[in-house]
């Protein structure tokens, strides 16, 4: 295991915000969470187990620190992560 991976596995603290369906399902609109997830995708799987989110990751978009990112983006301590269920403007 490389040094980088060891570093990735340490728990880090991230902030989550929940909207719409996810907010209702998680029964909260934000949380500060210590996680060993290395990527946004891994974090979603962790949350999905805990809150029984019905939507697969493939239907979500992901934003970190107020910008859209891919699901494989590595998580860093202090990140604000938002999983975005299907939207409906207009």
């Amino acid at each position, binding site marked *: 295991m490389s040094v980088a991976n060891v570093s990735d596995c340490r728990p880090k603290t991230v902030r989550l915000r929940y*909207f*719409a*369906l996810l*907010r209702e399902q998680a029964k909260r609109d934000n949380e500060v969470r210590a996680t060993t997830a290395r990527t946004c995708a891994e974090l979603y799987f962790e949350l999905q187990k805990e809150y029984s989110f019905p939507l697969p990751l493939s239907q979500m978009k992901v934003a970190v620190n107020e910008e*859209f990112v891919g699901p494989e983006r590595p998580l860093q301590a202090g990140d604000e992560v938002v999983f975005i269920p*299907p*939207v*409906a*403007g*207009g």
Partner: protein
Amino acid sequence: MKICQFSLSAEPLSPVLLSRALSDTAAGAFVSFEGWVRNHNRGKTVVALEYEVYQALALKEGERIVAEAIAKFGLIGAGACHRYGLLGLGEIAVWVGATAPHRCQAFAGAAYIIDEIKHRLPIWKKEYYATGSTAWVHCSEHSH
């Protein structure tokens, strides 16, 4: 300087004020789109709507969409405003306006902005039905 505006509002939208911001005597054509809260969707009677928005990202994405439309269609100016919170029937959920020298550009620009808003803006819509039930709907399930 091109006018490029995107905003979110908890209060009812005023098309007069929003379009006034786009006034420009170089513009020959102005096209606006308004999304109205309608009384039915997918066979159900709708009595109200609620929009929940991720404000910080919605403002950035909304401004990007308007700027893209200006660049793509050679608009003189464009703007959009999305309402959030609880809305009654007939209220304006979203307003889009585009000005251009010629009408084709203004039509294409306004259509582009509303299409992109519907698919890209981090905003969610909950429908309240006459039956008392509610549902989060998204843009693959319905369209205005």
